[in-house]
């Protein structure tokens, strides 16, 4: 099988899966088998591409030429391959988890849920493999649209309202800012292809670079840069598997991935180096990191707390991109993978706690570690990775990001990374501490001593979250491989 076929299949498999799932809707077992098989096949396909990309190959395929010079085209490069691999691997895990969660929670409309999930994954693959900005834009929008039914899954007025915020902000920013930037780029450069070293160098100069960068960064609403971050907390009304895979991995990572792609392949680091405009955006990102962490501290609802934590962590990557040097950009790329594993673990745990105990607030989680030891321990691992402590993968990406900031002698940004790590501890550790060291509450609210029986969430849930927690640790030891894999994208 040629690499071109593999690329096309990596989109066809989830889409075909979606069709099959819709057909098998009335038979849950078959439906979920289809989901699992598509997920596994997809990962196998993406994994089969990795060796070629690592060896320097850039398999590409043009789907259709819309207008002269403007095509829907796909190409696999290191950053996209990494993103696709992470997303498709976590889809398998999430599918396992979903089965436990959705059944355990007795959700309705499960078929629509699995269908949209598969379509969202197909869009994610499209984003990861886009060869030009227009293709990326198309899949970016289709990801927004396919996740909308998942956000409003509950169908309550509250969910519909959240859905409108979600759609309004994501579509609004992308059409008003991002599309304008794309059109402008085409007008200036005559191409939208992702090219190592950028396509804008020498084509635009002065303030225009700044305006364009501004339009791109704010136009990519999926990075949840303040003040356009509100859709992410709003999206937390969705079922937990959605929050876990889409709003901690696929959707938001698509955002930062796009920012990285734009910085590296549209602008080129050389063009940005030494400009003022990216500095301002870097300050915006740094502010988002700190403010979102502070907001997370005050959130009692565990999922909302994690959502704001995501807002803050995404801005790490934006900050890395805006610092525009090799270390910070590589760190940003790595953080896509590291944060994905950490955050999905945390969301899995939140969902597992909800399924098992129906508790959603942090303040209710006293002694949860006694009844759900595996879950709480996994939460602990995920937290460590997010904070950036060894031996967790999260340490490395933060290390390179800080190194990037230090290499440009901008102490402010180094300080931001450090402070935010402290804040991470402050908002994540209380859950673990309450879980393990506080006595559990009985249902009537009185504090009961002694041993409560162990009552974990359904097995698929626990299995999934243990696996991702393990992933956090494994990534610590393979970080150098990822770094070497990403290195060529800088074109040096």
């Amino acid at each position: 099988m040629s690499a071109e076929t593999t690329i096309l299949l990596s989109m066809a498999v989830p889409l075909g899966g979606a069709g099959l799932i819709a057909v098998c809707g009335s038979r849950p077992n078959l439906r979920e088998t289809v989901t699992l098989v598509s997920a596994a096949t997809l990962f196998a396909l993406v994994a089969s591409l990795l060796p070629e990309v690592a060896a320097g190959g850039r398999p590409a395929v043009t789907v259709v030429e819309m207008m002269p010079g403007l095509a829907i085209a796909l190409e696999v490069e290191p950053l996209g391959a990494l993103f696709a691999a992470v997303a498709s691997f976590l889809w398998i895990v999430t599918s396992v988890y979903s089965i436990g969660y959705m059944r355990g929670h007795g959700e309705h409309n499960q078929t629509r849920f699995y269908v949209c999930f598969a379509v969202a994954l197909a869009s994610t693959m499209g984003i990861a493999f886009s060869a030009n900005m227009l293709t990326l834009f198309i899949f970016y929008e289709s990801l927004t649209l396919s996740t909308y039914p998942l956000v409003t899954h509950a169908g309550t007025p509250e969910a519909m309202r959240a859905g409108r915020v979600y759609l309004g902000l994501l579509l609004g920013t992308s059409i008003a800012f991002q599309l304008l930037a794309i059109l402008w780029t085409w007008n200036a450069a005559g191409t939208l292809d992702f090219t190592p070293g950028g396509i804008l160098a020498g084509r635009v100069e002065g303030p225009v670079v700044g305006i364009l960068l501004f339009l791109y960064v704010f136009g990519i609403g999926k990075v949840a840069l303040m003040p356009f971050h509100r859709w992410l907390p709003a999206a937390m009304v969705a079922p937990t598997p959605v929050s876990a895979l889409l709003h901690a991995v696929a959707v938001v990572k698509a955002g930062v991935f796009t920012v990285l792609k734009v910085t590296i392949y549209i602008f080129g680091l050389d063009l940005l180096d030494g400009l003022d405009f990216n500095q301002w955006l870097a300050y915006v990102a740094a502010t988002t990191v700190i403010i979102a962490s502070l907001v997370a501290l005050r959130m009692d609802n565990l999922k909302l707390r994690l959502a704001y934590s995501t807002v803050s962590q995404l801005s790490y990557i934006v900050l890395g991109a805006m610092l525009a040097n090799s270390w910070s950009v590589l760190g940003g790329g790595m953080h896509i993978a590291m944060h994905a594993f950490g955050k999905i673990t945390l969301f899995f745990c939140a969902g597992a706690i909800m399924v098992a105990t129906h508790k959603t607030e942090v303040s209710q989680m006293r002694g949860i570690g006694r009844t759900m030891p595996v879950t709480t321990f996994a939460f602990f691992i995920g937290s460590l990775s997010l904070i950036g402590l060894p031996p967790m993968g999260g340490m490395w990406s933060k290390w390179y990001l800080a190194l990037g900031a230090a290499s440009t002698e901008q102490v402010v940004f180094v300080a931001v990374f450090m402070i935010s790590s402290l804040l991470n501890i402050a908002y994540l550790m209380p859950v673990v501490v309450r879980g393990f060291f506080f006595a559990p509450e009985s249902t009537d609210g009185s504090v009961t001593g002694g041993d409560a029986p162990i009552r974990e969430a359904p097995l698929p849930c626990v299995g999934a979250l243990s696996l991702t927690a393990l992933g956090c640790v494994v990534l610590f030891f393979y970080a150098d491989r990822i770094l070497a894999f990403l290195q060529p994208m800088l074109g040096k």
Partner: protein
Amino acid sequence: MIAEHLPALQVVIPLMAAPLCILLHRASGAWFVSLVASWCSFAVAVALLGQVQAGGPISYPLGDWAPPWGIEYRVDMVSAFVLVIVSTIGAVVIPYARASVEREVPSDRAYLFYCMYCLCLTGMLGIAITGDAFNLFVFLEIASLSSYVLVSMGADRRALMAAYRYLIMGTIGATFYIIGVGLLYMMTGTLNMADLAERLPAVAETRTILTALAFLTVGISLKLALFPLHLWLPNAYAFAPSVVTAFLAATATKVAVYALIRIYFTIFGGIDVFETMAVREVLMGLAIVAMFAGSLVAVYQNNVKRMLAYSSIAQIGYMVLGISIASVTGLSGGIIHLFNHALMKGALFLALGCVVLRLGSAHVRDLDGIGRRMPLTMAAFVLGGLSLIGVPLTVGFVSKWTLIQAALERGWWPLAVIILLTSLLAVIYVWRIVEVSYFRPVPEGAADIAEAPASMLVPLWVLAGACVYFGARAEQTVTIARAAAATLLGVSP
């Protein structure tokens, strides 16, 4: 032999079909005659486009009277393209009409409906093909008079008032147009467009010519419902039979836009009216207001037909905007949007017609969960809606892309921002319908309704499919539109 007389046949075929419909006096017979007539017109139009692409503009002296004294039919890239647009819609709509007319028009009047439809088609094709300014008026009136009748055939009694108002406004517009033509004739002594173009520059400085231009602009703007002369349109579209709405929305305003293009770029081709006569400021201003006002009002409509009618007003704004930019890219953007808007509005109104057929209403409150009850119809509606927004891979994107490029080429980036902002408004009103039809439960106790019959679904999907096909493969349409724009502006493409 036949190839030589294609320009005349283009108009004569539907014209002859009209009295035939009356003679047959039966709905099914009349329907069949109009079916044959519109498919033949379509074939002729495509053949003409082929001829023009191969051998350049065709001039056809009607009755062998040599122009400029006789009436000349002149087919160049622009008119051939518009002929194809109009006859395509005609050919697609007519198979659909049968079931829909049966439901919405009393059966004893159905044959008259087809007669009027043929006349309307004649008028529109005539506008697009004629090279004579006065002849254009005649065809304009043939098209308008028959469309007043078509609108008045709506089942609701409000259709009558809508048709009456349309008539008053339309007639004033047409009369303005002949005043303008009269003034031009006074100054130049000719009515042939090409001849006018040659003679006008000599008298361009006079006040009479400026007055003529003003009369022509206002007259045609009334016909194409350019804001603020659009007041007749929403009611006419809302209360006309569904087929008529689809047909008129996809073609009537298009040929009026075509007439406007002809006036500015052929008749006044020798004079830069955009720079010297303040046409740009006026048109661009009105177009922008139309884009905003039309979309904003559309957001608040509860009758989906009316909503789409207001959206049409906004979309006409895009076309006029393209004209007012008056560069090759801008004009080609306007011309592409003629074609693209015909496809998407056609599809949307046809889809709505299917809904009306089964539901008897096009009100938002009746559409709860309709996406699950009529999945094929609503899927086509969504495709049309996405095109309206300008989502990539649909035709709407191609139009907007070209228009924005035109704006950026001139360095008018605020214009680009405005186009994008109005697209956002389109998102709102289209999404409203999507939310209602897919994310609301089907009302309890609702009667079971079937999908629309295949005779309606096939035309609908032809247009909806075309929205996607020409969105993904825009090269052909873009090339034709650029060639047309280049011809009009007298530069090489």
